[in-house]
């Protein structure tokens, strides 16, 4: 808005070069030389000029040069060429489960998380409209699904019953068809077939139902016995304006690390043993301190930062790093007087031994799966590990440098070997710690 001038019965508003004149109790809006007639007159209430909502759709589009829509149901004003995605839902029975099929008018991006015994399916950043906020289904596996976008992020929330513990989301039809398969797990973990998709269990439901599941007679501990799964924080290095390293073909480190994190995340969730927290979601800038704060709030079993950098001419190669300070810490700053407080730049020091063990487990398992992980982990002052209050390591693949063709690093087989190596290493790390 360029300016405003109010008289007793009229108000003049400059919006860019356009002059708008409103008169009290008058339906006529003057825009420069044009006249627009509103269905309801303009009112002044306690000194505030009030326009009817149709003002938004009749006058505002001309001023903004963009389409404007007003959604009555939730009183939202949509400015620009926003066509909200809409969807229909159908439920069908499958052996020991229910399949919910959500058909969208436009493609969505799929990301899932478990919260308080419910499955949350994030639908991407594009607005989604739903005809109703809750859907009920007559089955014993998933009686309810809700749609929610109150925080600006459209998502579906599935509430499984105590038997609907296995969840297999998948996206087909060019990203337009979301199939959420909710099933009862087979009775014994030992005889459980390996799921092919991304499977994990909602936390609280796991805890409530653990008692109802028959205990396995074998030495294999039941996977879902723990009421809360340990958290693994995955950190995709760089992002936003920070591209990181760049390969000969223009491949950027920030994109490669996001790809690796996505694969490792799926592998960890598929194991059914971990909750995964990501530091960076999407192509955004995130400082080392922000990453460390996200990690520390999650109280994780492990923090793993992914990088790709200049490692000479050999490719592919993998290094694993834990944090070592560049100089011995000053004993005067070690918080001797008040042991409750640790200087922020020395937080990781208390976890040095565990981090070194995790790095060793990772180096050994990655060597087993990829044969490219060298002979021993490194201990150097990696900035992003410095303030993590948990066992923390960095994995670097390479070489990603201007004089090297990085194609081997984007090979799905290589990336999946890394993902499997990480899952195996975390299992070894937990077994060693217990």
């Amino acid at each position: 808005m360029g300016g405003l001038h109010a008289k007793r019965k009229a108000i003049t508003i400059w919006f860019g070069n356009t002059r708008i004149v409103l008169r009290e109790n008058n339906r006529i809006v003057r825009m420069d030389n044009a006249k627009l007639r509103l269905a309801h007159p303009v009112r002044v209430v306690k000194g505030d000029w009030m326009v009817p909502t149709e003002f938004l759709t009749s006058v505002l589009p001309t001023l903004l040069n963009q389409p404007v829509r007003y959604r009555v149901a939730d009183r939202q004003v949509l400015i620009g060429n926003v066509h909200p995605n809409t969807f229909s839902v159908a439920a069908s029975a499958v052996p020991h489960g229910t399949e919910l099929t959500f058909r969208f008018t436009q493609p969505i991006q799929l990301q899932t998380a478990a919260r308080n015994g419910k499955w949350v399916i994030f639908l991407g950043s594009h607005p989604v409209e739903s005809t109703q906020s809750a859907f009920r289904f007559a089955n014993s596996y998933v009686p309810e699904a809700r749609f929610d976008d109150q925080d600006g992020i459209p998502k579906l929330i599935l509430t499984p019953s105590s038997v609907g513990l296995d969840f297999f989301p998948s996206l087909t039809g060019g990203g337009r068809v979301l199939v959420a398969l909710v099933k009862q797990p087979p009775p014994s973990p030992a005889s459980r077939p390996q799921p092919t998709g991304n499977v994990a269990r909602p936390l609280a439901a796991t805890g409530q139902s653990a008692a109802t599941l028959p205990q396995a007679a074998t030495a294999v501990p039941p996977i879902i016995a723990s009421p809360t799964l340990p958290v693994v924080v995955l950190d995709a290095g760089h992002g936003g304006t920070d591209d990181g390293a760049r390969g000969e073909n223009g491949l950027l480190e920030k994109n490669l690390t996001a790809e690796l994190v996505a694969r490792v995340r799926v592998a960890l969730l598929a194991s059914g043993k971990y909750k995964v927290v990501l530091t960076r979601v999407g192509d955004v800038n995130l400082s080392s301190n922000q990453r460390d704060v996200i990690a520390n709030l999650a109280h994780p079993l492990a923090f793993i930062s992914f990088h790709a950098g200049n490692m000479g001419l050999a490719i592919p190669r993998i290094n694993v790093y834990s944090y070592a300070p560049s100089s011995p810490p000053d004993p005067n700053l070690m918080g001797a007087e008040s042991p409750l407080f640790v200087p922020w730049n020395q937080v990781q020091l208390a976890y040095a031994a565990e981090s070194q063990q995790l790095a060793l487990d990772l180096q050994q398992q990655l060597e087993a799966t990829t044969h490219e992980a060298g002979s021993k982990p490194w201990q150097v002052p990696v900035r992003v590990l410095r303030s993590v209050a948990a066992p923390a390591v960095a994995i670097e693949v390479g070489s990603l440098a201007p004089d090297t063709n990085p194609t081997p690093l984007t090979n799905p087989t290589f990336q999946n070997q890394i993902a499997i190596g990480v899952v195996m290493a975390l299992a070894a790390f937990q077994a060693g710690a217990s």
Partner: protein
Amino acid sequence: MSRRVALFSILTAVVLVGAFFYLLRLKRLTFAPQSPKAEATARTKLREAALEPASGPTQLVTLYFPSYAEGLLRPETRPLALAANDTDRIKQIVLALIEGSQQGLGSVLPPTATLRAVFLTADGTAFLDFSQDALTNFPPGIESESLAVYSIVDSLAVNVPDVKRVQFLIQGQQAHTLAGHISLSGYFVPDSSLIAPSQ
């Protein structure tokens, strides 16, 4: 009365304008990077300091260069007439590292990197102030940054015994990281664990 006010206004204006130009000059002196020409001059001076026969006799010095194939630093010896003065010696060693390996080992910092200033404190802390160029053409990575940093720290420790630790500065300021990965906020003590074991 109004004349006095006018005089006062003019005086205030003159003082303000003067202060503005003084602050502008101060800012340029304090924060602005050196002009390319100044950088080139500094580089020439540094080269002269490093390569002109110094007072001391020519001796074999050991420089550590990255060997990426092994993920280690490898020693390389070459004859150099080291200056008697510690600060000049530090400059000579760092410049020789920037110039690169003569035996095909990896580079430490890009050839455009310039050492702007060196300062050695009485307790053995060497402050090395590099130009921004040291970073702009540096291929980033945890391994490459680690090897670059310890190539300098370990080479200085072995050739200038008075250097006990190294603090890196970029354009006169403390930097968070070398190129996104290795923290430069603290000083570095020599670390021989990255040096290839002698055969």
